[in-house]
């Protein structure tokens, strides 16, 4: 088994009085093809953990290895490059550009990571077809439903063919029916071999994952499956 993510005694402390230790000495290994749900109440530090996993934030202590590479040793510019090629993000708030079509939104995920210009449109269309939106290429987010918007965001995340897909409360803004269809999509992506990490506080979401990690007050506890 080869690990995509290896956390060794990772901590993240925010300065202040008193300092807030959002993540405390976390150990976590995520293998290729894993589907991991990180569950916890709000304020438990799971968003901070996701930011560290996504190279958006750096741990204050411990070691984080992504694909065998120690992220702590990388410069800001290289961590940025790593995000662009190896990590896909799906956010609760979608973060779509409201004035661009679905296709253009997916293509923004390919602008910065050296995907050749001529390949971007094709790759973006394939990603949109993968999430079942092949018929909505020229729709702007305003014209799409909530579930469709989240599918566009997922397409944007998977278009660069990342090694790791990080989802931060991906169904937080969706009703239960739409949530179910998004979770079905995650299952399909999982079957395709994508490594998935989903942060959630909904048991309906975490129940679909094969591994569940509980997070309470910054402490990680993996539940026996």
């Amino acid at each position: 088994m080869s690990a995509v993510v290896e956390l060794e005694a990772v901590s993240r402390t925010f300065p202040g009085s008193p300092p807030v230790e959002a993540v405390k000495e976390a150990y976590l290994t995520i293998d290729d093809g894993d589907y991991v749900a990180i569950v916890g109440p709000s304020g438990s530090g799971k968003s901070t953990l996701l930011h560290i996993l996504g190279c958006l934030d750096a741990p204050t202590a411990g070691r984080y290895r992504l694909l065998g590479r120690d992220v702590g040793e990388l410069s800001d510019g290289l961590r940025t490059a790593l995000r662009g090629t190896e990590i896909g993000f799906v956010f609760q708030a979608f973060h779509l550009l409201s004035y661009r079509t679905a296709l253009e939104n997916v293509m923004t995920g390919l602008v910065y990571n050296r995907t050749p210009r001529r390949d971007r449109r094709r790759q973006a269309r394939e990603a949109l077809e993968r999430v079942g939106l092949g018929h909505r290429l020229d729709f702007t987010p305003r014209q799409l439903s909530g579930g469709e918007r989240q599918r566009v965001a997922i397409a944007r995340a998977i278009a660069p063919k990342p090694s790791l897909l990080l989802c931060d409360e991906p169904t937080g803004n969706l009703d239960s029916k739409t949530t179910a269809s998004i979770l079905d999509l995650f299952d399909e992506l999982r079957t395709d071999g994508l490594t998935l990490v989903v942060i959630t506080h909904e048991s309906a979401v975490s129940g679909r994952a094969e591994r569940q990690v509980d997070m309470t007050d910054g402490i990680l506890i993996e539940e026996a499956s």
Partner: protein
Amino acid sequence: MSEQVKPITHRIVRSRLLIRDLIAEAVAGMLARPGRTVLTILGTVLGVAALVATLGLAKTAGNQIVTRFDALAATSVSVSNRTEGFFFSPSREDVSVIPWDAEDRITRLNGVVAAGTMTLVDTEGELMSSVPINDPLGQTRYAVDVIAASPGLFDAVIADLGTGRFFDSGHDLRREPVAILGPAAAARLNINRVDQQPAIFIGDNTLAVMGILDDVARETSLLQSIIIPNGTARELFGTGAPAEVHIRTEVGAAYLIGEQAPIALSPNEPEKLRVRVPPEPRAVRSGVESDVNTLFLVLGGVALLVGAIGIANVTLVSVLERVGEIGLRRAVGAARRHIASQFLVESAAMGFVGGVIGASAGVLVVVAVSANRQWTPVLDVQVPLLAPFAGAIVGLVAGLYPSWRASRLEPVDALRGGT
């Protein structure tokens, strides 16, 4: 499953943003909120339009003033002896290099409308009167300048006759004792009509008054003088040589005549003559321009500054509004410099578009004002061509701070914001 893993053993390749992509992103950002973009651009439009219109109107007005000025002053040329003070009568023949036939020599030149010599006559202190008696009770004798003139002088200085007639070349050749009075001289000598052939007395000489001037456009010293023919002056007072030549040219010929006249008058020693030509029109024009320019360029600059502040303001607001977009771009691999350059190009592009619209508006203003005043619109070609780039620079400078702010945002903080 393990064979699918691709550990990063190779070098991580840095993020990149192609120029084409940068421009596409910036243009899309501009078009995302067209209404706001138009309002943002408005300040630059006004500033650039003010600058272009100012430069154009100054040049147009300057050109117009010179054209009017030409009509009277730019056709006047005078030649005098360099060695002597201006308007000085040489008593010896060899001092002046201006010959007595100067009028003939000059009128032969192409472009000359009229020419005549003018010389202050040395009357050796004789006083003038219109009555041949000494009245012990009242003053009847006055000191009045006597000027010897060739017949063409009256036309050359644009003299209007009040009554009587001018003397002609016949009077000159026959050295007849005749005189024309300037209106001021006539009043002093108590002569106001010539139909009874009044006489004036200069010492022992008697001169018949032929006419009285009404006005003179140039050389107003003639207004208070007694004017006699050259021949008469030589006969009665032994005047040696003409002191100066006045020339009226056709419009535009003044500079050419100014060069030719000394050679025509004194082929051997043209350098001994001093020529007065009207001021260079270009000098007058630039003088007018600089007057108008300094005032309005300051106004245009202020307008442009206001435009720049407008762009800076809106770009800053836009950065704060688009925090989510910035966070997302950082998440998908945009480096800080990519974020900064996107906002910089956006503000520079807004400045450029503002410059294009402003330059067009400025040119329209120049044309409209010119049409209204029936002027000829004049504008340097470079001005409207360079204006858009001035606008782009304004936008670029205005975008510096907002772009820097945008690039400093931490992605984690940026993503926490909405949209």
